[in-house]
């Protein structure tokens, strides 16, 4: 579509600024310059490809599908891994060969930030407190920024609701740190850098909230940063 119009612009650019022109531009004789036209069109195609591939790469690498449900620090993707998933989550999940939790099994919620919006850091100490939605079982896992498990001091990388100390009202407090803590201790990476990033994954099994519609207004634990070295 640009083939006929752009060459004139190119030649014009090169010459009009310093050469005095007697004729108004509209009726000036037009000479095309094939090499310049070709390089201009090539530039457009190359720029477009870079922009298109780059933006797709960024969207996929962020691993944050479009149809997320956000509650506090937590995000869930109830439609991921179903036929109704958006193209981004289809690409993310098939590229990672991820087998999602299906709706009849449970729901995974992922946190990448604490309550004040800071990215989670595996060298810090966090308190995760509050309540979870009704579920027959839930587990809490700490992974690195890419979702991989990391070596911890006790070798354990998760906590589950069946082995949890609770307050009389049913609420709980979890201390997430690399060094041992009393109470409910969720071990973090034994040797980690702040740049590794971190995610908390809360998996609710057999929970009524597995469909996205039921996710509005549920209470989830709050993640607070207690201190960093």
């Amino acid at each position, binding site marked *: 579509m640009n083939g006929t119009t752009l060459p004139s612009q190119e030649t014009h650019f090169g010459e009009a600024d310093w050469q005095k022109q007697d004729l108004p531009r509209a009726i000036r004789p037009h000479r095309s310059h094939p090499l310049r036209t070709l390089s201009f069109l090539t530039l457009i195609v190359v720029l477009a490809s870079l922009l298109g591939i780059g933006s797709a790469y960024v969207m996929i690498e962020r691993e944050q599908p479009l149809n997320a449900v956000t509650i506090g620090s937590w995000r869930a993707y109830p439609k991921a891994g179903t036929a109704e998933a958006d193209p981004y989550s289809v690409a993310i999940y*098939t590229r*990672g*060969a991820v087998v999602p939790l299906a709706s009849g099994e449970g729901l995974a919620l992922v946190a990448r930030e604490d309550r004040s919006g800071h990215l989670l850091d595996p060298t810090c100490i966090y308190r995760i407190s509050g309540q979870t939605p009704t579920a027959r079982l839930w587990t809490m896992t700490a992974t690195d920024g890419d979702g991989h498990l990391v070596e911890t001091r006790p070798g354990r990388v998760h906590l589950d609701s069946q082995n949890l100390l609770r307050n009389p009202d049913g609420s709980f407090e979890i201390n997430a740190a690399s060094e041992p803590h009393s109470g409910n201790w969720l071990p973090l990476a034994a040797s980690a850098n702040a740049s590794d990033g971190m995610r908390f994954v809360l998996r609710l*099994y057999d929970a009524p909230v597995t469909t996205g519609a039921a996710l509005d207004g549920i209470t989830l634990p709050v993640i607070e940063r207690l201190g960093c070295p």
Partner: protein
Amino acid sequence: MTLSPRFSITLAVFSVLFLATIVHILVVMGIPLNVQHSAYDNIATYGPDREFNLLPDVRPQQEALPDLDPAMKHATCRFQLADGPVLFDASIPTSFWSIGLFNSAGEAVYSLNNRTAGAERLSMLVLTPAQLSILRENPPENLEDLIVIETADISGFALLRAHVPHPSRANALDQALLSATCGTIG
């Protein structure tokens, strides 16, 4: 005819954006068609098809599949319905287990857990609509007790998850998952 430089630049910018959008869409839509290792392919490395294969425990640097829960033990079974209907049968002594059926693209087809199964024992039959109509003509005795799933997806896999409440239960659960069957009816 000659265009003003400003118009040409604007046109060029718009054509870059337009082409970039097309490239972006093509890349995103093309990724699922060009993945080297889908979950369906990866599962084949853990054992033969039409058989539950125990996945190694979920530990750091040894995750069989991404995003599995370290609190669970997993077993998978890959199947092709062209080889006949698949009967899943398992009895897992734990307070929570679940099974998800996925097609070869990794999309969930059906899922249930031990509460929604309605029985302690998992008995589930997966077949195509054509196979179901053949089966109806000469139904097996226990058809009433089975959860029957009709699917048009010819190939797929099942992922069975069993919660390990305490490490001391790990061996018993390994045995239960190893004796789970994923085979032919009758």
